[in-house]
């Protein structure tokens, strides 16, 4: 023992109390089940106030549901994600794994009372959310037994990519080089010196008076944004 007297074994009850994570291969998923209609009731009392009755609200957060099609359910790629003119991105447009939803709802939702749902309630609201996006039918009962089948219908299940140089190890992909390559030109470089974007005048004071966001002494002051710019 390298460090005598430090730390102790965890009891099985202790591990059970905290080991709540659920992986994409469903390791960690507790047994249980919940129907769409059960989920609807829970949703309406415990989730809709923040996320909207159809998961469409963006009052406290991005909409959870919307933007996916039956075709996406078939292909596993959310088509609208390829469109540069479609600004919104709902949770169900992005999420690749049903386990991610289950795990997160189970640990963190409802936001103001996390970990208050029973296992079956988590199954049920998950079913309800999936039903809103027509991933599962109205009479569906999701359970640990059939969740792997549900995974095969996740609309963006094929929309992810882990082959990039921004993971600090070779666990996902080996030898990938950074994707953006720039060179360090020093003189007479081909530069764009035309201003293409700047803060519109009406937004001048949108972050408050910048004169009050800089020190009172120093090489400069904050700009008084309560008055228009000097010529």
């Amino acid at each position, binding site marked *: 023992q390298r460090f005598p007297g430090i730390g102790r074994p965890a009891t099985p009850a202790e591990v059970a109390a905290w080991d709540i994570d659920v*992986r994409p291969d469903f390791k960690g998923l507790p047994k249980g089940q919940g129907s769409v209609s059960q989920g609807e009731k829970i949703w309406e009392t415990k989730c809709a106030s923040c996320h909207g009755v159809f998961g469409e609200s963006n009052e406290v957060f991005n909409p959870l549901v919307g933007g996916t099609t039956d075709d996406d359910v078939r292909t596993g790629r959310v088509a609208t994600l390829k469109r*540069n003119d479609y600004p919104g991105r709902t949770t169900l447009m992005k999420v690749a794994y049903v386990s*991610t939803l289950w795990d997160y709802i189970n640990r963190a939702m409802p936001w103001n009372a996390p970990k208050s749902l029973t296992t079956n309630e988590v199954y049920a609201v998950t079913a309800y959310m999936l039903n809103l996006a027509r991933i599962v039918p109205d009479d569906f009962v999701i359970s640990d037994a059939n969740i792997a089948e549900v995974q095969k219908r996740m609309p963006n299940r094929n929309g992810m990519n882990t082959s990039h140089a921004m993971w600090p190890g070779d666990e996902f992909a080996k030898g990938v080089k950074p994707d953006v390559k720039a060179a360090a030109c020093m003189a007479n470089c081909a530069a764009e010196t035309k201003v293409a974007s700047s803060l519109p005048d009406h937004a001048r004071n949108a972050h408050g008076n910048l004169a009050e966001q800089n020190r009172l002494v120093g090489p400069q002051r904050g700009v008084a944004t309560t008055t228009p710019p000097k010529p």
Partner: protein
Amino acid sequence: ASAAATTAIAQQREGDPAILELPEHSKGLGKPVVTDGYGKPSQYERNVQRRRSPGLTQTAQASVSFAPLQSLFGIVTPSGLHFERHHQGWWDVDPSKHRLMLNGLLKTPMVFTMDDIMRLPSVSRFHFIECGANTGMEWGNVAVPTCQYTHGMLSCSEFTGVPLITLLEMAGADLKQGRFVLAEGADGSSMTRTIPMSLVKSGEVLVAYGQNGEMLRPENGYPLRLVVPGVQGVSWVKYLRRIELGDQPWATKDEVIHYVDLMPDGTHRQYTSIQECKSVVTTPSGGQVLLDKGHYTITGLAWSGRGKVKRVDVSVDGGRNWRTARLQDPVMSKCLTRFSLDWAWDGKPAIIQSRAIDETGYVQPLKRQLREVRGTRSIYHNNAIQSWLVQESGEVGNVHLA
């Protein structure tokens, strides 16, 4: 003109009242020691605060506050000004009741108290922490006025803690099978992130309790947080309660739904963790006004999630010509580096930029170069070169060039 000349002569004979009339503090007795057992900044520093960006988030508990980079010196961020990012609000956790559990692919699942952890051999290292969404508002157009808002989800501290590998070894970790760890917090979101064992094995990942000489601040995870050098802030799990060793990644909400980078082809890059080489000029910067022509010291910060900053170049003509800046030593790995360069402002418009290069040879890209590969919908990991336009009036604005 003659009146002005007279005033000038009078002033020459007399001088500045701030000198000629001795201030109160030169003629009186000041305040006692321990006026504050824990001191605070001068009343004249009241403008130096962390701030929210109006409208950026819909709630204040799943939100961010930005560090006032425009007013900071050197590389250490005062803990009171450290940027905040909470997903379900922050807590002041009782450290005597806080526990850290280790489970998964190891011989003995274990529990540690804070007493236990603080008895183990620790290291102290200076590292930056940057939110993956820093500069995220600026992928498309100019959205915010100052470097507090463009780059302020960035801070740098001396962190003290125990290398996670030490704890894993104590629990008899299976270092062959175990390729990933899950880090889990004790807050409402019980924030979870997958961390590569390759980084853990290097000894760089810390289970940290110390920040700038004292304990972590509650907003930053008191009493325990994970420190994952070079990796985006959301992986530095706060209120750390559990570490699980596993053979597969966890696909947690914040690594596969939220902190994902949308590519032009409509796919999402998941697990994008490293904060690539980046820099920003903090003086002069957006929302400031220069008082006068003449000498200025252009200064700013550079950093890389892949190691040390090797070089920083500065341009005052919008990128046509560059000069290499001075770097303040010590230059440390995955740590902020302060650069500076002399500049005589002639009163004409100027566009100021900085470009950092890290020890891997990676060159910080132009916005255009970044967008060419990643489009404009990526949100995360905007490490493009920042441009500040100094106008004739002395006013400095945030601009994008094309």
